[in-house]
């Protein structure tokens, strides 16, 4: 019970900070940062929230069911343009995924290259 209380308390704090900040950052993301800082500075030990965290993470997809069902309330507004909208969603997701994957992989390779070059002993005459 204390575990779940801690997590919900951090979420409440995140919500408060989110309302106070002038830039739009969701409470859940601020809560994530806050909880990370608590773990990082050893204010909270990992084992103290591990069990509840596993429960929440394992069931994350399930928690999205109502948000997905809620799409029917927007159906009237998107019905006319449903095909075009789906087209944009499908293609942008594909492009974004590809661009991100290739960039991460590319920069990783550059990093490796830089590291291996540094490691090589310089044979300067």
């Amino acid at each position, binding site marked *: 019970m204390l575990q779940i209380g801690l997590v919900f308390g951090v979420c409440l704090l995140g919500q408060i900070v989110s309302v106070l900040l002038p830039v739009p950052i969701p409470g*859940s993301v601020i809560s994530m940062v806050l909880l990370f800082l608590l773990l990082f500075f050893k204010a909270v030990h990992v084992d103290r929230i591990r069990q509840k965290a596993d429960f*929440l993470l394992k069931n994350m997809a399930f*928690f999205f069911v109502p948000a997905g*069902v809620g799409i029917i309330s927007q159906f009237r*507004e998107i019905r006319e343009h449903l095909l075009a909208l789906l087209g944009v969603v499908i293609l942008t*997701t594909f492009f974004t995924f590809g661009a991100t994957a290739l960039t991460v992989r590319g920069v990783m390779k550059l990093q490796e290259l830089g590291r291996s070059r540094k490691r090589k002993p310089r044979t300067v005459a």
Partner: protein
Amino acid sequence: MNEVFASPFFGITLSILAFEIGIWVEKKTKLAIANPLLIAVVLCIAVLELFHIPLASFDAGGSVISVFLGPATAVLALSIYTQLSRLKKYFLPVLAGTVVGSLVSVGSAYLLSKWFGLDRVLTDSLLVKSVSTPFALAISPNIGGIPAVTVAAVVLTGILGAVWAPAMLKLFRVRDPVVAGVAIGTSSHAVGTSKAITLGEVEGAMSGIALAMAGLITVLISLFLPHPGQ
């Protein structure tokens, strides 16, 4: 009968049942399209439509489930913390990936909307569709979008990302869990992350970082987009 449907237990029970059926179908068929979230959403909508149950009744229970989205996102901190050494090592690639990915997302949404002949308002509603709902809802009205359309596009993007992630990983020959997590989180926010978690702890942690970073970067990008009405 309406009072029964308006009880929170209706929405909660229906969601759990639908999701369990989704898990069962996924196990039986082993098809990517048989995604438990997708199946659960379709089943719930079918039940509501079939029995003429208003969405508000379902949401009495649905909103209880949605409460857990915040804590579920927050505890991603734990995965990130356990993957800290990896994150330190790959901070530069992760940052580069989320910046490029976010730019491509907004840019391609703009160009494709034009290409599909969508009008200005709909285009503006789709620009920030790759970030999670609270981010998107905060940005969309500022740049002239309709919040309802944005929410629909965000949810569709998330579900599509979750369903499609394994196929896209194969297509782009992604084997590194860091690359996989960042690509999933940047392209399909928290819903995609829920899929990344099932692939492995590294994927889940990286997807969590990516969803937060892509959200923040998209907020920055939106500052450079035209703000109609201001």
